[in-house]
């Protein structure tokens, strides 16, 4: 059963070669690993996405260099963005905006700054970059001033938390066709499945796309404790309480003075 995801990934890699037969370029991408395991000493992890641009022998070479954009999206949750406003002498959360189904982790890595690769209009239309990546999702779509303000604040705050990041030179070409991009997954990134979209551009035109994925899961003690808390809440609570009382009793015995 453990081999199955790898097989599936291999199949995914082979598929587009057939579909995109009419095109000049095809893209192959693979992850260094499809799973990050959280253990008790977990402090974040790094994966690498590798890829290769395959050119059809008959096509003429392009004047523009190849550009790669890698977009990693984490599990989706509802996020609330709140704005504090002045009410009399105090500051309170007055306005809030919901971003349903919003990725809690978002990483955009490119081979050179996106602004050099394409026009802002293309970046918006093609959903390239931190502010554009979720353009189709609810709450991101309209471009009114207030939505833009909330969207930019969301990205800014998530960047501060290390959960959103833009690496403008995060993709490195190892040869003219082979590239790699490190993906830093901080320890605060949530468990769940992550999708990795790799897009090949030349002169601002998307030539080929490839999607792969990985997952972040708890293993060992971490997994047993977390599932114990959900599956046997009474037992879990009781054990915690007894542990607490035991500690309290133990201290009074150890430190007894009279």
């Amino acid at each position: 059963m453990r081999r199955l995801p790898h097989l599936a990934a291999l199949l995914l890699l082979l598929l587009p070669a057939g579909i995109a037969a009419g095109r000049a370029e095809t893209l192959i991408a693979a992850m260094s690993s499809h799973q990050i395991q959280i253990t008790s000493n977990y402090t974040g992890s790094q994966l690498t996405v590798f890829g290769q641009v395959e050119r059809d022998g008959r096509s003429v070479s392009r004047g523009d260099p190849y550009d790669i954009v890698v977009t990693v999206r984490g599990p989706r949750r509802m996020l609330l963005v709140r704005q504090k406003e002045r009410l009399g002498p105090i500051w309170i959360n007055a306005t809030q905006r919901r971003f349903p189904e919003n990725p809690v982790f978002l990483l955009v890595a490119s081979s050179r700054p996106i602004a050099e690769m394409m026009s802002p209009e293309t970046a918006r239309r093609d959903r390239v970059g931190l502010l554009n990546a979720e353009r189709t999702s609810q709450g991101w779509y309209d471009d009114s001033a207030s939505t833009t303000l909330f969207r930019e604040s969301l990205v800014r705050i998530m960047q501060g938390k290390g959960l959103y990041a833009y690496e403008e030179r995060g993709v490195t070409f190892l040869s003219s066709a082979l590239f790699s991009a490190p993906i830093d997954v901080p320890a605060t990134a949530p468990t769940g499945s992550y999708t990795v979209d790799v897009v090949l551009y030349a002169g601002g035109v998307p030539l080929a796309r490839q999607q792969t994925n990985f997952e972040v899961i708890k293993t060992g003690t971490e997994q047993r404790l977390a599932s114990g808390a959900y599956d046997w809440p009474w037992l879990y609570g009781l054990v915690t309480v007894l542990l607490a009382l035991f500690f309290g009793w133990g201290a009074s015995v150890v430190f007894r003075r009279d």
Partner: protein
Amino acid sequence: MQIYLPIAELPISVLMVLGLSGAVGFISGLFGVGGGFLLTPLLIFLDIPPAVAVATVAAQVAGSSMTGVLTYLRRRALDLKLGGVLVSGGIVGTVLGVLFFNAMRRLGQLELVITLSYVTLFSIIGGLMLYDALRAMLRVRAGKPARRRRRGGMHPWWMGLPFRQRFPRSGLYCSVIPIALLAVVIGFIGAVLGVGGGFILVPGLIYFFRIPPAVVVGTSLFQILVTMTGATLLHAVTNQSVDIILATLLLLGGVIGAQFGGRAARNLNVESFRLLLALLILSVGLRFAIELFLAPSEPFSVVVPESAR
């Protein structure tokens, strides 16, 4: 050294948590307060989700108050009868508090309610205590007794209400009604703010009922032990946000810190004890007031609603 917390879902420095809980444990042992009102905001400041912080601190407070209860029991400085009245009142208050908590959460103003309550409560209680402690100190300077001596038969009107009971260990002969009422208020506040309520109970018993501080601390710890044990269980069952690894670390630091705090408390005279507790409570209130009154450098915040976790 970092350890990953399975429920809070982030790694944390073991030494930092031990140091933090040790310091709060010291204060808790010194003043006979649970320490939750200090520990919960500190954990939230360390990026631990608020629900996890509140629930896990409940376990820690239960553990450290257990130590205190045993110590005070041995010293016969715990009024079990008074504790019983406080616990039953506290249960009523907790239920009311949880209902209010959920209503405010539905309205989306829970955060404001919590901040406002911290500011008003801590400023009022801290301010009153500070005033009283300073006045007592001035009287001592002037060569008078710290406070006017109580004459027999003189007592506040609320102590003479019906259902009077003798609480021999506290040297108290008083109506059950005001005591139970105080306990209801504390249970309510405790449930809303996620704190044990010892920091209100201790001064409340001292000021309203003139119970000797030594007995107050033990009895308050007993009430905290019972409510926090119940709160831990309830949190574990209803929202699964008790982090057992974090609880263990907090307990380890907390119980050790509380021992030293308890030792220090015996070398402290009553007046400086009051002054210190007043200053501590006032400073926590001030910390929340700053948040409320100063223009925030980042007016925006991002939260994952608890229902979506």
